[in-house]
């Protein structure tokens, strides 16, 4: 196909730009920020281009590029997007761009900050578009390690060292265990290739699939925050600087879910069918318990951190239903939650920058000083409650439908989470944004800058846009899900 290698550019541009950043003079903050902004904008525009020009009626994988990498082992650089990953590429583009804008105020070594952030972005894009298992692992590991430095260096002083190490070790353990599973698939298939499309038709024996599925699935699902391996995530989110929390909760957790789907469910479908009935119970714990813990937190950022656990539980639950509605819902939820949680963390960061505290009881009355931020948060809150007219509804409704088809009582229990979510969202809105401004904050609160408003506005636009016009995203995800269902034997 004669075309611009747009996916490769999206994947490699952040890396190249990040490396160039390291060679810019460290004291020219202006130049560094402008460089980062330009890169972010460019990548964002290209991800929009990919999303818009994805042809729903077209072939399963589009924008295909394949080059030999290590032909002796059947490794190739093989990238493409399907209906599930195209929205995720868009999501990453949005979060990266807004994350750069929000990070304008980073004053400690901004050069290194943006450098590592961009290396991380390359890893994330790479996983979403990889069709070669080796490439997928390659990019996956690239995405894991800069997190450590980003959190440990620029994070919240109290917990950053602990949280960064915990997060890195959890994710690394998960990924290397999945790696062993991946290697087992490679050798068992006897095809001598890491091409995942070829491995899909390898017809692994049921015993093999049943044995290896949990390793691969959980190995990746750790990053998706599945219970009981979720507890790196709230600590990590809270300790991370704002842009990194956005990236992390918004995009990185999807990486885990997506890879669990791509390598786990799609390559080992029989294993998935065997194990999902009990895995769905774990996701149920995620959904309800995560929401409950979020409700009792007093730290603003921890509330959001645990809400991510709850919402990512819905994604895993959607996968676990193994039916069309569940998958479609999960696919949309990945994007919807990604944008929503990026918005939340951006708001938390803005409030903290002004008030220097995140304790909910010590805050109040913010709406007077930062009305735009308050509105943005309320929109995010409505999304997270699954209110119709917002993307959360488009995502969660099909998930619950899927779960109902699978086992009605699970759906009934899971729905409780929406009530709990509503309670903590409303509590934050009323305690942080409305009510009285505490005396000690008097005169310290200023509105955010126009560029930050722009970032919030962009995020809100996606949430509302998908909510009002589901047709901008749902048919694409449906197209992607169709091929997953084919692999599952039309189940």
């Amino acid at each position, binding site marked *: 196909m004669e075309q611009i290698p747009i996916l490769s550019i999206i994947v490699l541009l952040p890396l190249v730009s990040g490396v160039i950043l390291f060679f810019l003079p460290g004291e020219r903050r202006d130049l560094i920020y402008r460089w980062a902004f330009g890169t972010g904008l460019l990548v964002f525009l290209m991800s929009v281009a990919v999303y818009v020009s994805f042809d729903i009626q077209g072939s399963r994988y589009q924008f295909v590029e394949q080059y030999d990498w290590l032909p002796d*082992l059947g490794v190739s650089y093989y990238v493409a997007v399907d209906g599930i990953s195209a929205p995720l590429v868009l999501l990453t583009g949005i979060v990266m761009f807004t994350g750069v804008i929000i990070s304008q105020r980073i004053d400690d070594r901004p050069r290194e900050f943006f450098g590592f952030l961009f290396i991380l972005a390359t890893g994330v894009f790479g996983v979403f578009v990889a069709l070669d298992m080796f490439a997928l692992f390659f990019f996956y*590991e690239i995405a894991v390690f800069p997190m450590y430095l980003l959190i440990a260096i620029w994070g919240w002083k109290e917990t950053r060292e602990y949280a960064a190490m915990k997060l890195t070790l959890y994710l690394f353990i998960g990924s290397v265990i999945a790696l062993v599973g991946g290697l087992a698939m490679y050798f068992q298939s006897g095809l001598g290739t890491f091409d995942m499309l070829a491995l899909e038709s390898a017809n692994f024996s049921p015993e093999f699939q049943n044995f290896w599925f949990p390793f691969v699935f959980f190995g990746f699902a750790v990053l998706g925050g599945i219970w009981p391996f979720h507890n790196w995530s709230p600590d990590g989110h809270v300790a991370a600087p704002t842009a990194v929390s956005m990236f992390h909760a918004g995009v990185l957790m999807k990486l885990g879910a997506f890879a669990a789907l791509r390598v786990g469910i799609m390559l080992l479908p029989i294993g998935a069918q065997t194990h999902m009935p009990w895995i769905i119970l774990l996701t149920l714990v995620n959904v309800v318990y995560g929401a409950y813990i979020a409700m009792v937190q007093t730290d603003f950022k921890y509330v959001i951190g645990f809400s991510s656990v709850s919402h990512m539980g819905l994604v895993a639950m959607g996968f676990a239903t193994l039916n069309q509605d569940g998958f479609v819902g999960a696919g949309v939820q990945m994007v919807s939650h990604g944008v929503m949680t990026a918005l939340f963390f951006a708001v938390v960061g803005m409030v903290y920058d002004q008030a220097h505290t995140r304790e909910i009881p010590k805050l109040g009355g913010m709406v007077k000083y930062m009305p735009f931020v308050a509105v943005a948060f309320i929109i995010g809150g409505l999304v997270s409650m699954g209110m119709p007219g917002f993307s959360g509804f488009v995502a969660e409704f099909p998930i619950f439908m899927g779960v109902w088809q699978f086992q009605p009582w699970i759906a009934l229990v899971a729905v409780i989470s929406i009530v709990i979510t509503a309670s903590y969202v409303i509590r934050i809105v009323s305690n942080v944004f409305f009510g009285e401004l505490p005396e000690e904050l008097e005169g310290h609160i200023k509105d955010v800058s126009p560029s930050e408003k722009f970032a919030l506005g962009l995020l809100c636009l996606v949430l509302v846009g998908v909510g009002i016009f589901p047709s901008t995203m749902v048919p694409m995800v449906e197209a992607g899900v169709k091929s997953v269902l084919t692999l599952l034997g039309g189940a």
Partner: protein
Amino acid sequence: MILAVLPQISLLILAGVVLVVDLIVGKERKGVLAWLTIYGSAVVFILTLIFAKPDSAPVEVWGGMLRFDWLAYIFNLVFIAGAAITALFSIGWEQIGRRGEFYILLLTSTLGMTLMAASADIIMLFLSIETASIPLYVMAGFITSDDKSAEAGFKYLLFGAMTTALMLYGLTLLYGFTGMTNIADLAAAFASAELPLASSLGAIVLILVGFGFKISMAPVHFWAPDVYEGAPTPVAGFLSTASKAAGFAVIIRLLLVAFPTDVLPGWVLIVALASTLTMTIGNTLALAQENIKRMLAYSSIAHAGYILMGVAAASALGVTSITYYVIVYLVTNLAAFGIVVIFWRAVGSDQISAYDGLSRRSPFLALAMLVAFLSLAGVPPLGGFIAKILVFAAAVEADLIWLAVIGVLNAIIGLYYYLIVLKHVYLFRSDDEDKKIAIARPHAVALGICIVGIIVLGVVLTPWFEWSQAAAAAIF
């Protein structure tokens, strides 16, 4: 025939030239010796690369003493490159940088290693191991005015002598059982003769003790931390890379060739257990270290454990993975020790806590350290990632899935302590932050070569992998 020993001959000539020049030049111009060694090794490297390339079919030369094949070719290049980079890092190091003896010893040891990698006969094997080892004992204890260095040299010598004796005993048993010394003949003899399993395995264990000493395999790894800590840092870097690579070359030569797994399957389990023990001990003890050289010593023990997975796989992919790993490890660990050299010269401390605030004192040194340590930890897009994947793949292919799982769990412990060091570099503050760190030009060049090597080995895979495959094809 001559081409087969071209690297050895040219190394010998180079050592002779250094010796003569050392006698001629005056005291204040001794610095030229280092450059002579470096440029000389570079020339030897290029000569070997171009002219000593073997045909695809291995041949035995010099009365069956040496094999002229791809395995020897690639390992020779590794040793020579290691010697050149070590010489670069030795420049400016008090008491070694301007001493002719040091460079002669370095070249002689390299000569021994090139013979080790090419040996086709157990007598040649033993002689070459001694040729490589004895100069290393002296180099480790080279700074006689420093007690630690003297202790390192002496400890290394005693340990080396004992394990060599055990290995020699094992080799004599092999000769006693079969009446042969040529390794290929040994293989044939073992395949046909009905030898009692216990005595063959006994001989293998004895030999493994000697080889294990070279590669710092548990339980004969005790010397490594003390010697690495006490020896001059460039020497420690050389010990952990080239010398270790030579150890693996002879392990491939003897174990994998003379004892086919279909006849003598037992030794695979022994190696697999040794691998488990080695990487676990190396990694867990590295956790507690406060001196960076000791930490790198334990990390180097752990890496020997990973590479042993490739030996335990006893397959073509296994040898391929060992070769790739050795190449990656050469540049990675030389970079790590090189950073220690540069830092020590500027700050005068090897404590990990002294590295606090390094990223503010020298962003480039910090970045180099990030690359080297993450490569050791096995993070893409660096060489260490590919090397680790290959040894794990070899283990999985050989149905040693338990070993692969132990390996990946160990990789996590490894990541932990490498990150701790990076935390000192990037996160912690210190009072000396405004004191910049000067990097001497030769050191910057050497470090640059290593860092570029690490990245190239991690991104452009095919050429090196095909080299490694060619090395494996020489055995299987």
